[in-house]
């Protein structure tokens, strides 16, 4: 029982965090058909900017509101700044290119973003643990658990709800869906697809940065820590179906729970099992568990 609760808690927390990150990735892919490796760069930048601002605010109990303000603000700034630059000046010129070239370009951008971090923030690891320490911990079913990590699950639910509401209930959501369905038809209907792409990319970037910014207080933020997250969210997105929002949810739940189980039960299999699931899903249902099938174009 104890073991089960540990695995469930760990898995859910990890899944929430993965969900926020891979939601950004899957939205970018769904709308723009771009597999954005630079997403890891957004993630790392969000984490760093949030860490720096939290450390700047210092360990002060009157600041607790400011911490969260800083986290969200860094995510928004990172998404806006890099999202705008990358989409406007690089990706926009490449939409007619081969899909592999676009992936490679984002790969190059990932490298650049990673090294920019070294220059802007230095090489020393940052540990902005104040928000996590302030909230303390509680006992859940006999297991001591930090409250801050639990709020991550809350954040994931809020993000999922906002995303669902936006896509299904608003006019902009419908515009987005029509662009996803067929870019050219949307253009002929008078939708400004260029603008939709820009906004989508920025929002995707913000989500990636938010994942990084929110997880920062629970980890030590050091150079190169984003490299694992990129492939992990790739796995999530592939398992759930590239471009599918519920897919990202299910995918991150699967990956989070399986990883937590492996970490506690068979640490040797930790990495292996996630990618094995990814491979198996691709073999059985290449479009992912939740993506609608595409017609084969001749």
């Amino acid at each position, binding site marked *: 029982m104890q073991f089960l609760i540990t695995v469930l808690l760990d898995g859910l927390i990890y899944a929430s965090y993965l969900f926020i990150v891979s939601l950004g990735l899957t939205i970018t892919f769904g709308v723009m058909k771009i597999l954005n490796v630079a997403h890891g760069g957004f993630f790392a930048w969000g984490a760093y900017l949030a860490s720096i601002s939290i450390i700047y605010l210092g360990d002060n109990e009157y600041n607790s509101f400011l911490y969260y303000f800083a986290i969200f603000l860094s995510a928004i700034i990172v998404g806006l700044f890099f999202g705008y630059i990358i989409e406007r000046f690089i990706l926009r010129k490449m939409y007619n290119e081969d899909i592999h070239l676009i*992936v*490679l370009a984002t790969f*190059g951008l990932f*490298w650049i973003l990673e090294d920019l971090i070294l220059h802007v923030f230095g090489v020393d690891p940052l540990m902005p643990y104040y928000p996590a320490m302030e909230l303390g911990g509680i006992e859940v079913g006999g297991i001591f658990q930090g409250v801050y990590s639990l709020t991550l699950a809350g954040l994931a639910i809020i993000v999922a709800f906002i995303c669902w509401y936006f896509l299904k209930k608003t006019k902009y959501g419908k515009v987005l869906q029509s662009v996803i369905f067929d870019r050219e038809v949307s253009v002929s209907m008078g939708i400004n697809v260029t603008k939709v792409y820009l906004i989508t990319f920025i929002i995707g970037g913000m989500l990636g940065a938010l994942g990084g910014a929110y997880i920062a207080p629970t980890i030590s933020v050091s150079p190169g820590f984003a490299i694992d997250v990129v492939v992990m969210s790739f796995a999530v997105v*592939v398992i759930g179906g590239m471009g599918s929002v519920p897919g990202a949810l299910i995918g991150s739940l699967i990956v989070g729970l399986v990883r937590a189980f492996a970490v506690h039960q068979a640490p040797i299999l*930790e990495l292996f099992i996630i*990618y094995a699931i990814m491979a198996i899903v691709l073999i059985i249902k290449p479009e992912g568990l939740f993506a609608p099938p595409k017609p084969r174009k*001749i």
Partner: protein
Amino acid sequence: MFKGILKEQTIQVGIGFVFIVVLLGTFILPEWMSNNFMYGLSRGLAVLGLMILWRTNLVSFGHALYYGFGAYAVAIAQKYLGVTDVFLRILIAIAAAGLLGFVLGFILRRYREIFFAMLSLAFSMVLYGLLAKAEFLGSTDGMSISPSTMFGFELGRFGLFYFIGFVVILSLIFAHAYLRSSLGHLTTAIMDNEIRVEYLGYSVEKAIHIKYVISACLAGGAGGLMAAALGQVDPDSMVLWSVSGELVFVTIMAGLGNILAPFVGAIFFEFIRTYAYEFAPQAWQMIIGGTLLAIIFFLPGGLWSLFQKINPFKKEKK
């Protein structure tokens, strides 16, 4: 298949190029520079494998799977069988990678575009997950490889360099023979229109499968040579997805125009990396990333398109 191949211009230029590189590397240049040539030639094999795949518009984001598998095959053969002979090493690396490629090819040959890329990525990360945690194979520290021998005598650095040149020439000949055969000519046809190729009576899946195995063998050979040249194998620098990304990057940087391009590109890449690391240790990734973007935007044909513009051997069209 191999008839008259030595008379082909590509092969003659290729053999000349390898000879020059090997002679430069063994007699003239200082060791750090000639190391770049040696690693470049070895990794060029893997890039050649990727290029052959890319000509059908299949891009593997997990080719480090075969690269690392070949390297680890050499390491395992040394640990458990005591194999240090350089011929056996390269044969084991190629055979192991080829076998793995043959098995996985049955699955991968049905996939195209981004799904092909993602499934190869998944397979390579499965291997990474296994190797990074396998204690009897050294986990993330990897294993060391003892110096290679040939017929019982230690080969030394120069000897290994000659051997790498020899392997590269053989694979150039083989790759060229493959690409000019009717099977190889199917490559472009499949990229243009698969269904038409099927109607012509060829099996697209079979053609892709053969191509995939060849590509895997080349990448495995590259891994085997690299393991012997570096004297060390480890999952982070041999199997991780960023290694696959690097290989794909070199492919696009080199260009798809010619079978020699991968080797030129791989050597060039080693030099960028060494220089960038030497002069700007905190910005070398940025330099590499910037180079990648610059190539994609300003030199879509890769480095090889520069050579084509100034090619002294260019044939006049009659």
